[in-house]
């Protein structure tokens, strides 16, 4: 079993104003684990995710990450170039808006291949094969491999972004509402794909979502945030089936069921 965490977050605070941002957040994340962060808009979920993925320096607190080389590093003690290197080679960051995570000026195939090249792969045929195989995994038409993402629909762009991020077999993936703009059929396929990858690659994932059904199917553990603070945390099914905090009870009871 994975007794050692891959990420340790200690007393993290980043405030834009009182109650805006995230405050005093602490948790450990283990390999093979999906941690869901849920809460309403403006509860600080995305701020927290930006801090965790070395894109926004916190006001206070520490984040420690265990690298592929089995070395603990203090994230904000690293140089910017080392942070970017971790982002490119050990992590995946799936943005809420695919345009933020894709290179819109180059082809879909190049968007996937580029990440592989950053890890040292150069063989054109292999890059193209891998790109094709990932495109079909996320149910994109491989005939469109040479088209630019600008010609793709929003849902297709999101799937391309996920393929681009997972192709390098990251150890830790951050996702901000990754299934938000997708058709439900594609959403289901992606959830299944993500869960398989977590199991097979022992991936650790932090996923921000306001969709409790997505959280239930994907995350083993949940953090519920409100006004920048963690109000409840626990096993996903326990938090959703027997919520303790007033806010979580409201959140759970407000879900529409079909």
């Amino acid at each position, binding site marked *: *079993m994975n007794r050692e965490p891959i990420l340790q977050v200690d007393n993290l605070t980043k405030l834009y104003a009182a109650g805006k941002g995230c405050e005093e957040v602490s948790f*450990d994340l*283990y390999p093979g*684990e999906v941690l869901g962060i849920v809460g309403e808009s403006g509860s600080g979920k995305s701020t927290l995710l930006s801090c965790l993925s070395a894109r926004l320096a916190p006001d206070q607190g520490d984040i420690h990450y265990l690298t592929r080389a089995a070395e603990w590093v203090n994230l904000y003690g690293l140089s910017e170039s080392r942070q970017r290197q971790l982002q490119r080679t050990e992590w995946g960051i799936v943005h809420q808006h695919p345009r933020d995570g894709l290179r819109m000026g180059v082809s879909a195939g190049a968007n996937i291949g580029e990440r592989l090249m950053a890890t040292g792969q150069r063989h054109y045929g292999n890059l193209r094969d891998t790109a094709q195989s990932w495109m079909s995994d996320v149910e994109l038409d491989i005939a469109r491999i040479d088209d630019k993402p600008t010609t793709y629909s929003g849902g297709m762009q999101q799937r391309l972004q996920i393929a681009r991020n997972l192709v390098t077999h990251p150890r830790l993936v951050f996702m901000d509402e990754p299934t938000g703009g997708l058709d*439900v*059929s594609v959403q*289901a*396929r992606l*959830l*299944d794909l993500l*869960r398989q990858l977590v*199991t097979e690659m022992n991936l650790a994932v932090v996923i921000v979502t306001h969709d409790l059904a997505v959280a*239930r*199917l994907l995350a*083993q*553990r949940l953090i519920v945030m409100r006004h920048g603070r963690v109000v409840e*945390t*626990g*096993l996903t*099914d*326990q938090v959703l*089936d*027997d919520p*303790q*905090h*007033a806010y979580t*009870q*409201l959140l759970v*009871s407000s879900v529409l069921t079909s």
Partner: protein
Amino acid sequence: MQTMIEVQGLTKVFTLHNQGGIKLPVFDGIDFIAKQGECTVLFGESGSGKSTLLRSLYANYLPTSGSIAVRHRGEMTAITGAASQTLLEIRRETIGYVSQFLRVIPRVATLDVVAQPLRERGVNVATAHAKAAELLEQLHIPERLWSLPPGTFSGGEQQRVNIARGFIVDYPILLLDEPTASLDQRNAAVVVDLIRQARNRGTAVVGIFHDAEVRDAVADQIFHVNPARKADGLHTNEGVSA
């Protein structure tokens, strides 16, 4: 026989913060022990808290007070107050739970749904699929359905898929919430067989069975769940505790 589950002074009160903080007591001060190789049936009127108790044993519900310990990796280990990591490990290795409803990712094939608990324990695809196929066959799910997602199946078929998924791992502890509720006699008999086989392997089974025939066929001990005294005229109702 070794003790597998020990419950002491278990009390559950639901507090509904958004309904003026009213408190719904479910049960109060429950003590019981479940042993290796025995089937314990939770018995009581509707709303007595059987399901709540069963869910508490799986750490799906948080008890208000009291303690639950289970034998995990040979040692009695507290579930109440345990870290999430410990609970996840206990669920992966020690406790299986068959709920009344199948909750899975849409569009995933039935064979994969059933094989998943084995895959999560690191068993390879071929072995996991073979075991899944064996159980589905035993439970009379026709082979032509195995590649389809169970979402569109009938209630009875979904329940059998759920049962196959729960029995695919030889858990030391198995919790069953009305596993035969929507099954015909032929399939209920298969479930009775599966329960007996698990028990004979040494599994401690704890279950809720409304069907008296099934209950008589599997029960080694019956535990009566008595509802908490109704406080301030409030009723513990099934809608909350189920």
